[in-house]
């Protein structure tokens, strides 16, 4: 049980008064971010990242990951009380959460949502604790072709498992890679696509892209809908919490199933949004009360919340063990690691033991802290949404501008942020997924490096991607996923098409 030993050491690293304080600060900020329109896990962490440059890496990651947990918890508050999903992964929570609130059972719904989030996260963290070191150990033997194959798999699975037009997924991804290529070429030192502009030498920072795409884009979208919040009152007292907790063990099958769905979708870059929908759909199909789903069933809140939180947490596994983030927020955290001078990837487990196990330990503690914070402060956060949009909107745009400026202390970045905001608005409305763009922008240089190294080794022969069984099977799997839209079309032509579940049709392209 080497892992348990390391984990205990991790707890020792994390359990300082400063870190615990930062944990609560992070959770509170995270819930706030999750509740506010226009601020989400990814851009919230991106905006706050520059504030952590002066901290030690462990304290910084504790705070930032807690912001992430907080955002995951916070999304449920607006879904249940206002029928407005604060985050895409809480769309499925509105289906049964809001009807419950209308029936006057908001407290129960919120307790169920938070508790299942917590359980989903806990299962995922347990999985990370034991699986991540194994994956990292395995990946230590990876060479350039293997790494490129894994990158390929990551991006192809967007195409294979994503919702929406495969062309749009490809475009979003290729645009990310193209933007990542702007600036100095890391291998030859040549300037690429800078068009003679010295300011473009630095390239496009993905933090700017994240702030613009998710922050400004989201504000433009919310404004278009002309937001008028009308929320239900939230009253949580210990009695409601206790009564709900007594009910929850009944749904243990749903919890286990949802956790597994979430873990799977989190490790593969499916993400929390598809995970929550898939889990809701499965629960609806398999539960005895399935027919009553959508009218305010507690189980319909448990299923998507467990899966979303499990997926959000397990997205950190590939980031830690392979250096490949499973979600935009994980990508931002990965960017943080690079800035603090840590090289994400399998070597992290060997060279930065304290940091890795500190982070894993903080996942346990952070989620406990999160549960405490959200259960005690819901009315406070619900009241934030009663602040009129005409105050919140400009303040959020100011926050985004400050966040974009602090990344490199460059005014040009603020303009880029506005540009990315327009792109985000258009892409969201036209159902282009944003996650592939962000991930390609983050991983662009590394994917290119591993591609070039592989090509150097093989002198330009693409067959190196099948040079041994390991790399061969990853590459084949990747290509299979890439062609999946075509394959499934052919299959559908042979067999009679099934009716599409109306619930799944509401899933947003994430």
């Amino acid at each position, binding site marked *: 049980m080497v892992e348990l030993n390391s984990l205990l050491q991790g707890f020792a690293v994390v359990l300082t008064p400063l870190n615990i304080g930062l944990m609560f600060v992070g959770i509170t900020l995270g819930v706030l971010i999750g509740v506010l329109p226009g601020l989400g896990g990814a851009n919230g962490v991106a905006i706050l990242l520059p504030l952590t440059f002066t901290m030690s890496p462990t304290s910084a990651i504790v705070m930032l990951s807690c912001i992430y947990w907080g955002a995951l918890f916070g999304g449920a508050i607006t879904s249940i009380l206002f029928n407005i999903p604060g985050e895409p992964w809480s769309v499925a929570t509105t289906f049964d959460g809001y009807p419950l609130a209308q029936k006057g059972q908001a407290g129960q719904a919120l307790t169920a949502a938070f508790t299942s989030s917590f359980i989903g996260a806990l299962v995922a963290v347990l999985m990370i604790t034991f699986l991540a070191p194994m994956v990292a150990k395995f990946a230590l033997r990876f060479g350039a072709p293997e790494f490129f194959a894994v990158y390929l798999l990551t991006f192809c699975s967007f195409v294979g498992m994503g919702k929406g037009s495969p062309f749009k997924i490809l*475009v979003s991804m290729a645009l990310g890679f193209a933007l990542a290529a702007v600036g100095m070429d890391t291998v030859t030192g040549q300037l690429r696509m800078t068009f003679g502009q010295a300011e473009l030498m630095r390239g496009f920072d993905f933090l700017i892209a994240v702030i613009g795409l998710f922050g400004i884009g989201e504000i433009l979208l919310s404004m278009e809908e002309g937001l008028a919040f009308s929320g239900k009152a939230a009253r949580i007292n210990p009695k409601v919490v206790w009564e709900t907790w007594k009910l929850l063990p009944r749904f243990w099958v749903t919890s286990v199933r949802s956790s597994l769905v979430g873990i799977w979708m989190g490790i593969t870059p499916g993400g929390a949004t598809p995970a929550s929908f898939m889990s809701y759909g499965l629960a609806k199909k398999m539960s005895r009360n399935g027919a009553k789903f959508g009218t305010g069933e507690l189980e319909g809140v448990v299923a998507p919340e467990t899966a979303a939180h499990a997926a959000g947490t397990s997205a950190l596994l590939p980031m830690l063990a392979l250096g490949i983030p499973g979600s935009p927020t994980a990508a931002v955290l990965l960017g943080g690691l690079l800035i603090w001078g840590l090289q994400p990837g399998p070597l992290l487990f060997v060279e930065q033991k304290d940091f890795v196990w500190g982070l894993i330990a903080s996942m346990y503690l952070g989620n406990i802290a999160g549960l405490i914070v959200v259960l005690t402060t819901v009315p406070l956060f619900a009241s934030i949404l009663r602040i009129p949009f005409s105050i919140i909107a400009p303040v959020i745009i100011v926050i985004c501008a400050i966040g974009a400026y602090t990344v490199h202390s460059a005014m040009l970045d603020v303009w880029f942020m*506005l540009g990315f905001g327009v792109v985000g608005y258009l892409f969201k409305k036209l159902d282009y997924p944003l996650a592939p763009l962000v991930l390609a922008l983050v991983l662009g240089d590394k994917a290119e490096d591993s591609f070039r190294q592989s090509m150097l080794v093989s002198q330009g022969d693409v067959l190196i991607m099948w040079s041994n069984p390991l790399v061969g099977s990853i590459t084949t799997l990747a290509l299979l996923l890439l062609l999946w839209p075509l394959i499934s079309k052919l299959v559908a032509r042979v067999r009679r098409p099934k009716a599409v579940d109306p619930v799944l049709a509401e899933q947003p392209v994430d």
Partner: protein
Amino acid sequence: MSDASPESGAPQPVLARNCSVDAVVAAVLFAVGAVVVVQARALGAGWTSDGPGSGYFPFYIGLILCIASAGILYQAVASKKRDTGAFVDREQFVRVLSVFVPAIFFVVAITFVGIYIASAVYIAVFMVVLGKYPAWKAALIGVLVSAAFFAMFEVWFRVPLYKGTLDPLAFLGY
């Protein structure tokens, strides 16, 4: 995006349809892809003496971008299943612009007077014009928010923010 064809009896004239916006965006993306391909070829998209050139990888990326956006363009223009739903109607478009245009002025203002003053003014004006707040309330909130950011960044975290070319806050000594 000018094919506004108001349906009779529709409450709000539709400014653009999904398929036409889709086509325009795809055309722009195709152009971006073409630029990437041309640039990559100029950098050396082939094999140089010491391995793949700088343009090797971007060349293929540009190619994927071109092919995929051509596919979207085809679907948006020629496909029978194209989405003719409303992209945006006039009221929505005005609302979006009412946030976006002031945001542009805000960023212009930052370059001259710095983030703090620009933010205070921006928040206050936004509140008065869009929120119909009394001027004194708006000004108060604008100044308070800005002051809070000042305390947080300059004093607490010691991260200096942009003060503008005119630097009107120089007297504060930060």
